[in-house]
């Protein structure tokens, strides 16, 4: 007996063979549950019962805060799409559900914008990589909405307007800080250190992400 084997001698004792004590015990357990749930339900004190049912159309279980849900495309201050058609999201997408066709933007500073931006929500695996890859906060997955049920598969493919209808203006700086971000960051007014320890980690050291993660 290499593995730990417990030898059970059957039949067991007389009381075990009679079944009756065990049956009475089992009936007691189920009866207790029944009485508690029944009277709690009848007297309207659902909270005190053990009932785990959520009566769906009337009651809904709140989603967790970080539930992703359907995509949305964020907007600029003037209501145009923030996306610059950089193709980061279709590249990173493991399910190949994002289709982008770029065109020239009338605004010379931005150069590109999506002519077609379609996401097939049936193929999407809701991994959130597209939102992570996006450099300009254009695509987000924080709508907390399910993919809507449709009668045709075509209807599950969301186009640019549909995705933008869910979007809002983003607070991120359009176009980022730019290639001279080091200068801009050092020029930015810093809070004077109060005491020896800086509020955001050790002074002058590299980013403390690794050590924070380890915690």
């Amino acid at each position, binding site marked *: 007996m290499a593995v730990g084997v417990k030898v059970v001698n059957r039949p067991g004792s007389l009381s075990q063979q009679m079944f*009756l004590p065990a*049956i009475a015990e*089992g*009936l007691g*357990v*189920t*009866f207790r*549950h*029944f009485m508690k*749930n*029944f009277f709690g*339900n009848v007297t309207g004190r659902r909270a005190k*019962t*053990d*009932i*785990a*049912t959520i*009566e769906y159309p009337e009651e809904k279980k709140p989603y967790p805060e970080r539930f992703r849900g359907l995509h949305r495309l964020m907007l600029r201050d003037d209501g145009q799409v923030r996306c610059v058609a950089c193709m980061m999201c279709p590249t990173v997408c493991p399910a190949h559900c994002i289709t982008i066709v770029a065109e020239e933007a009338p605004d010379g500073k931005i150069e590109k914008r999506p002519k077609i931006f379609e996401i097939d929500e049936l193929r999407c695996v809701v991994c959130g990589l597209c939102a992570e890859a996006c450099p300009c906060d254009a695509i987000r997955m924080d709508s907390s909405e399910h993919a809507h049920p449709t009668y045709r598969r075509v209807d599950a493919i969301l186009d640019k307007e549909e995705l933008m209808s869910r979007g809002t203006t983003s607070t991120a700086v359009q176009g980022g800080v730019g290639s001279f971000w080091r200068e801009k960051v050092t020029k930015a007014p810093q809070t004077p250190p109060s005491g020896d320890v800086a509020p955001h980690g050790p002074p002058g050291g590299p980013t403390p992400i690794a050590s924070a993660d380890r915690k």
Partner: protein
Amino acid sequence: MSTFDYGGTGFQAIEAIVKILFMVLGFLMPLASILTWLERRQSAMMQDRLGPKRAFIPLPRGKRLYLWGILHFVADALKFIKKEDYVPSKAHKFLFMWAPIMSMAPALIVAAIIPFGAPLCWGESQQVVGYDNACSHPVGLQIARLDIGLLFYFAISSLSVYGATLAGWASHNKWAMMGGLRASSQMMSYEVTMGMAVLGAFLVYGTLEPGAIVEQQSHILSFSNWGSSWGIFMQPLGFILFLTAAIAETKRTPFDIPEGEPEIIGYFVEYSGMRFGLFFLGEFLEIVTSSAIMVSLFFGGWHWGKAIDSFLAEFFTAHIPNINLYFFVITKGFLFSLFTIFLWSIKIFVFCMFQLLIRWSLPRFRSDQLLRLGWQRLLPISIANVVVTAIVILVAQSWSR
């Protein structure tokens, strides 16, 4: 005396028809139908769920009558009726069509011998018929007062095995066949135990007629006259054996080998629509009738003990007036009898709930365990019970003589 006068042939025929209609349409079928819903609701509560509660009748002005979901059995019946009545192409058509009825009908037929209330006083307007039968011509609340009584119960209820077996055979399906065979072996094994368990009660009360047995159990527990106590105190072991065998006869979960959802689906695997519904309803009818037999044999029928019975009889004599409709006088005795029907049905209801509780609490037996339990445990115990009961009664009789 004309035919339709009190006590005449026509009167007796009408009386019997009224009692049959009450028993079948007024008690058995409604209770069995409601049990189909109650089982789901009760088991849900036992498992921390809510159960079906959504069926409703739309009322005017957009209101809905829910009644806690009781109407689910109506919805189920409508669904069953609307479904296709499918017959497999190689099935034996005739037997396939008749098997569900053959498995349901015995449960309705055995209800004929069940006493369901105190005898009714028809002619006399003043008296209350209590436990002491003060009425000169009582109308017994029992459809048929047969002297063979319980033997009739065994004879008819053992016919329901034909329903299961023929359903399995006629379906032309191997799994159904297995289920039918298992049903026959199981029901035959447990009928023996059931008969032996009843034999004990027969020895104690000296009759096989359920009405007479109920009449004797007028006290809950009497120390001066043992024979008038409830059967549960005279035959506790007999009650447990009968309960076990009765649950096995209904083919429900601790003994659901013939159905065996995890393995062979069962003898009704090919059935759909209302024919399946008849098997389903038949199971619940068997629960009700076996509960009624148990109540009659071991729990005093409509009796709730001498104190409560005599209190009720005096209460009805003293405080309830005769209700004078212009064509007919509803007497105190009449109302008292109707009230005893209510008291009786409380007991039946509790027993049905108890059987549902058992069905949703216990795990199922394996086939070999089931037969071993039936033949090697319950049968010897029930025979020993009969022998010991006979010896005790013999000793007690010679002692008192």
